[in-house]
């Protein structure tokens, strides 16, 4: 397996506040990775930096590309569609994606939309939070790229839809692509993960194989994740 993502010595501050410090992270291709951390720990920031819609010092390489515009053609990041007015019909947004991304696979999108029960004749304003999230995920997964970044994909989603989304991730993930899923609630996705990456104290706390945690420590992922915070309290 080759490295799909390489982050080296990444430092990022926003409005005089340090958000990420000395972040180093390497991910292999073909994995499903859980990016864990408290709210505001910097999960979204890390994803935005990898994609290139925010800037930091340090080096980021995705599938061999380090220039921002090239990197963008290898990463599919969840776009929350803020640029579109609420009156926009979903099929127009699909057209937008189809035009703007060479790697957008319409057939795959239609399958996903069908599977997730998305009605494309609706307007953006007619979507519930969960349905909008499903639409965004379908768009994100329909690009054919090496790296997918899903930022809190289960936010605002009921348990039935969550199952559908998890299944669509399993079903439609290209074999060699890596998917990073951020979540602050681990147990809903833990069976899906190859590895976990924990962001804590402004940096990568650990990057471990999920089954190895279970095997070596006899712990479930959530307990392990919580133990990181307890240990932190002891040190204080």
């Amino acid at each position, binding site marked *: 397996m080759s490295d799909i993502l390489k982050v080296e010595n990444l430092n990022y501050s926003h*409005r005089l506040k340090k958000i990420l410090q000395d972040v180093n992270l390497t991910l292999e291709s073909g994995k499903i990775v859980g990016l864990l951390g408290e709210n505001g720990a910097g999960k979204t920031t890390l994803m935005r930096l990898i994609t290139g819609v925010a800037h930091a010092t340090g080096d980021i390489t995705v599938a061999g590309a380090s220039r*921002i*515009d090239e990197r963008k053609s290898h990463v599919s990041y969840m776009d929350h569609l803020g640029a579109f007015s609420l009156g926009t019909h979903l099929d127009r947004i699909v057209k937008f994606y189809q035009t703007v991304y060479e790697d957008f696979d319409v057939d795959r999108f239609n399958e996903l939309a069908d599977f997730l029960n998305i009605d494309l004749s609706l307007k953006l304003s007619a979507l519930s939070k969960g349905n909008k999230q499903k639409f965004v995920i379908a768009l994100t997964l329909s690009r054919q790229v090496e790296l997918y970044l899903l930022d809190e994909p289960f936010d605002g989603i009921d348990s039935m839809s969550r199952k559908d989304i998890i299944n669509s991730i399993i079903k439609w993930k290209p074999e060699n692509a890596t998917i990073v899923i951020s979540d602050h609630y681990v147990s809903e996705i833990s069976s899906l993960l190859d590895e976990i990456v924990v962001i804590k104290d402004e940096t990568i706390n650990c990057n471990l194989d999920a089954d190895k945690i279970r095997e070596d420590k006899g712990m479930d992922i959530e307990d392990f994740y919580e133990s990181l915070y307890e240990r932190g309290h002891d040190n204080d």
Partner: protein
Amino acid sequence: MTSFKDFFKILMGQKFRQMNFVLLINIIAIAVSVLWTLINGDFNNNTFFQVALSWSFIVMLWAFLRITVTHESIYTRDSYRLVPISDTKFYCINLLTSFIAMAYVAVVEFVIGAATAAINWQEYVDSFNMMRMMYGTRVPDAGMIVESLLSMALVMMVVTILAWTTVSLIHLLTRAGSNFMPYRRSRIINFVLYVVVIYIVLRVVGFMMNLVMNSTDMFGNSSDVWHFVLYIVGFLVVSAIEAVLSVYLMNRWVETVSES
């Protein structure tokens, strides 16, 4: 990577749709105004032209503001900034599509003006000829009118471009600068930052324009055609400098609005 053509198609389509909406409202406004004059009994052959002309200024201004808002929001929205395209192409396509959209409105306004003027054309021609008979060469002839209209259009175009490059520079400078301001009282700080940036940019641009004017003045007297061309070129050079700075800012400092 996304091609120039595809990204152009997307931005152009969006701005076209917005402009068509503006123009639709324009036509409705003209119709309502004409009806109003009709009801009031003030209607004459001149009404259409008068109404069209007076609305056209408002519409042009509205169109300009509408495009400017879109033009600027495109720089900071994920939907656009996630597209794999170089910042230079991104900037150029944004500017080009805004320009075409504005030109489109201007042409439509001109056509509406011409069409409504045609209703009463003979009368305008007659009064023009009358003026020329009475005042002689002090009234410009038709050729000169066309010439000055054309140069006015050219100046308008250049000024519009300069306006957008300046607004973008201010916007991007402020966004980049706000990354280095503290979290606390961010609204007030952003406001102050805007004021400071606007002041500085306008001073610098004003200084450069003066430079352009002074140096062109040295090359010839004011009636010269060359003089006019140099002015135009000078303005475009100022725009180009702003554009280069803006692209640099996009590339290094400007972040999108975080929507999650």
